[in-house]
């Protein structure tokens, strides 16, 4: 894995560090950029092995970047999108408050401008949504959409 050298990739590397430090995720459950799963890996089974609603996998990648002529007044932005996937117990009811608290904590970490320094860009907004609680699996998984599936994602000022 090569370290980023442009503002966008440097910032993405920082996002990786920030999410890796979130309790319930950790470096082993963060995926940055393209991820080719091996035949032996079953992502949904990996999620199901986690503690309900308080642990998860976070994957993200740069979706959009901007280069513009320097005299333009509009502030250029770029966007990082991804998803947070947590386990839920499909056989018992849940208000999902714990899952939402967990996801909101991740978003608050990502949007905190004091977490970014030097060449890293500053975050602008981080809308996200609960995309789906998938119950076709053994234990169920909740997918929080940070822009991977639709609108949303982490927008930065260049």
């Amino acid at each position: 894995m090569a370290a980023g050298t442009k503002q966008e990739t440097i910032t993405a590397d920082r996002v990786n560090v920030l999410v890796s430090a979130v309790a319930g995720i950790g470096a082993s459950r963060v995926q940055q950029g393209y991820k080719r799963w091996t035949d032996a890996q079953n992502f949904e089974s990996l999620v199901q092995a986690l503690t309900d609603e308080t642990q998860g996998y976070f994957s993200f990648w740069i979706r959009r970047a901007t280069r513009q002529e320097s005299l333009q007044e509009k502030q250029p932005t770029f966007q990082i999108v991804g998803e947070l996937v947590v386990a839920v117990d499909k056989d018992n009811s849940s208000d999902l408050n714990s899952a939402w608290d967990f996801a909101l904590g991740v978003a608050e970490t990502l949007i905190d401008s004091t977490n970014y320094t030097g060449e890293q860009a500053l975050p602008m907004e981080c809308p996200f949504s609960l995309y789906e609680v998938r119950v076709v699996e053994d234990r169920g998984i909740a997918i929080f959409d940070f822009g991977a599936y639709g609108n949303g994602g982490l927008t930065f000022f260049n």
Partner: protein
Amino acid sequence: MSLYDEIGKAKAAASFAVAGAFGETVSFSHRGAAGVTLKAKVGAERIASVEEGGILTQTRVRTFEVPVQDNFAVTTDDTEPVCPGDTLTWDSKVYSVMRDGIGKAKGDRVYFLQCVQRKRLASGVR
């Protein structure tokens, strides 16, 4: 042709012995309970790759026909023998029951289960 079509309702009702003669051994887990060994007729598998956002996922959909038998017996049709998310393991592959609606078909003693195995191929592809 379904198991029900092949053996008829009366023989299907005899269930376990018939299933043993016709079927494969599978392990079935209802609502997260410990798996029980059943006999089932294994249908064809349909494989598709779907992309949701930047997530490329392979889905394998397979049908299983499960006659009522020991560990899978229900006293009335009102009892719930299967529900979405129940797992069925066959040939070292774990399938999940997709939905309720297709649970009962082909007569009242044979359950026609549509199951899915989902596997991510890659993420971050667009």
